[in-house]
């Protein structure tokens, strides 16, 4: 996908000015509530008309104020998944899924109904009324409906924010299948950095109606570490654990980690905040934290008043955060080594 947007939109109490040029398959738009994310994607989908500017998608002009071009939404082939699923309540699951499919010209249909139903695990739901579905099922149907319209671009406008934590992480693999399985590029809108890192490769950051940064999702997370109350979230993929003295030992790279929580599956995603990693210059004599590892220091980066320390531990990467005084006292420099301590209870198992 190649997208170029140079648009302006003015409301009595809000103004959006965006000049974007991006290429990629998994792009995020990150920003706080009211920053203009939904206005931006609304203009891209054709649901809102910019006051001025131009929108080009894969070389085709969707909107141009100077050339008085404004393709209607149904002419753009840009589908959307909204925060609220917005399923058609007068249609059952099957007919919701087929709504866009039937309206897509046959020569543009590349997604097979049966394949999609299998990937999104909707087989048992097809004849059900959408009013009887759970929140997660509704969002899967909404995703399937959008995909079956065979769009050239899918916009996902905070599709997870109406779901609780458990459902959120259950839905993410399905959302990722948009690109991984069906090959459709997407724009993912969210105000969650963790969602951004799981769903996107590059991110546009919007503040008060203007694009202020364009970076990889990893860079964005590091840049915002110092301002975030939860710091930088390390995402660890862990295998099946074994009981170990009241805790659970997970193989991790060439080493292992001890966690206080058990996983019931072979591969789990675990969160660890950069704030929960303690650094030592030398091996501590005695310490209550159950995870004590020797790590190499790869690099340092600053974020606000904090210094991020990128570490290589047991063949894996971790980011810890410290203040500048600690950097000086511990002599933390790239190429050096430190010991890190992490409490077994500091890890948070993500549902899924």
């Amino acid at each position, binding site marked *: 996908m190649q997208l170029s947007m140079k648009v302006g939109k003015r409301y009595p109490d809000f103004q959006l000015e965006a000049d974007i040029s991006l290429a990629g398959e998994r792009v995020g738009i990150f920003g706080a509530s009211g920053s203009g994310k939904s206005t931006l994607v609304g203009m891209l989908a054709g649901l809102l008309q910019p006051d001025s500017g131009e929108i080009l998608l894969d070389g085709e002009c969707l909107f141009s104020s100077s050339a008085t071009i404004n393709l209607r939404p149904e002419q753009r082939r840009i589908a959307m998944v909204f925060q609220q699923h917005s399923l058609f309540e007068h249609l059952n699951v099957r007919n919701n899924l087929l709504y866009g499919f039937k309206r897509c010209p046959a020569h543009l249909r590349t997604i097979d109904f049966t394949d999609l139903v299998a990937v999104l695990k909707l087989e048992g739901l097809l004849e059900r009324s959408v*009013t009887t579905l759970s929140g997660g099922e509704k969002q899967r149907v909404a995703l399937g409906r959008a995909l079956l319209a065979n769009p050239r671009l899918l*916009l996902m406008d905070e599709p997870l924010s109406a779901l609780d934590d458990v459902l959120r992480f259950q839905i993410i693999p399905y959302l990722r299948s948009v690109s991984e399985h069906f090959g459709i590029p997407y724009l993912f809108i969210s105000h969650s950095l963790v969602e951004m890192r799981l769903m996107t490769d590059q991110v546009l950051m919007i503040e008060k109606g203007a694009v202020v940064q364009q970076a990889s999702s990893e860079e964005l997370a590091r840049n915002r570490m110092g301002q975030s109350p939860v710091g930088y979230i390390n995402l660890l993929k862990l295998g099946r654990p074994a009981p170990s003295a009241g805790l659970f030992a997970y193989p991790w790279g060439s080493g292992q980690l001890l966690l206080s929580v058990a996983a019931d599956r072979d591969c789990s995603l675990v969160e660890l905040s950069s704030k929960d990693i303690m650094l030592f210059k030398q091996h501590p004599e005695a310490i209550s934290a159950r995870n004590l590892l020797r790590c190499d220091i790869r690099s340092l980066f600053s974020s606000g008043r904090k210094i991020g320390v990128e570490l290589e531990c047991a063949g894996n990467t971790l980011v810890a955060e410290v203040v500048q005084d600690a950097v000086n006292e511990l002599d933390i420099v790239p190429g050096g080594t430190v010991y890190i301590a992490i409490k077994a209870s500091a890890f948070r198992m993500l549902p899924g």
Partner: protein
Amino acid sequence: MVLNDSDIQSIWLTVKLATCVTLILLLVGTPIAWWLARTRSRLKGVIGAVVALPLVLPPSVLGFYLLLAMGPGGPLGYLTGRLGIGALPFTFPGLVLGSVFYSLPFMVQPLQNAFESIGDRPLEVAATLGASRLDAFFSVALPLARPGFLTASILTFAHTVGEFGVVLMIGGNIPGVSRVASVQIYDHVEALEYAQAHRMAIVMLIFSFLVLLALYAWRPNGRTTKREG
């Protein structure tokens, strides 16, 4: 026999009138209600007030002006004259036309509420799935507004059945042409035929009650079971 032939004829005429008016208003009222529900035009207030006027206007006033409009010197009368239809006052088509104006808010307002309650989102979703505006109207808006259509149709039918003043002004009291049930009751009372008037009134009362019962007892879609998680 509880009702005489004249009573039955007036009831049949009433049902015919109400059916015609309801069907015509479904066609005429739907686009008006859709426009009122969706427009941001400054004319919305004016058009909305015009549509609602029969709710507050005395039927005799509305009937008087409709009579003038349909008469040979009125714009409608001129038009029907030019079209070769002839004068509409004291005819069944004239009665239908007058009743359409009189019952207009009973069709438009429930439909407008139903369309407004749908909101923009389902139509936006339909558009992003490839549906044109007309397609989205028929495939999404109309089905979702179905409860509103039922309410509007029942109210329009019942209101037309109960009308009196407008009918009398436009249609007069011609058996088989404009003597509807309410006028027939009036005639019985004028002739001191209270027993006959009573029977007709009971029929109207039961009908009105059944209509309202249907309206209040009916629940769109019934209760649904929603699962958490």
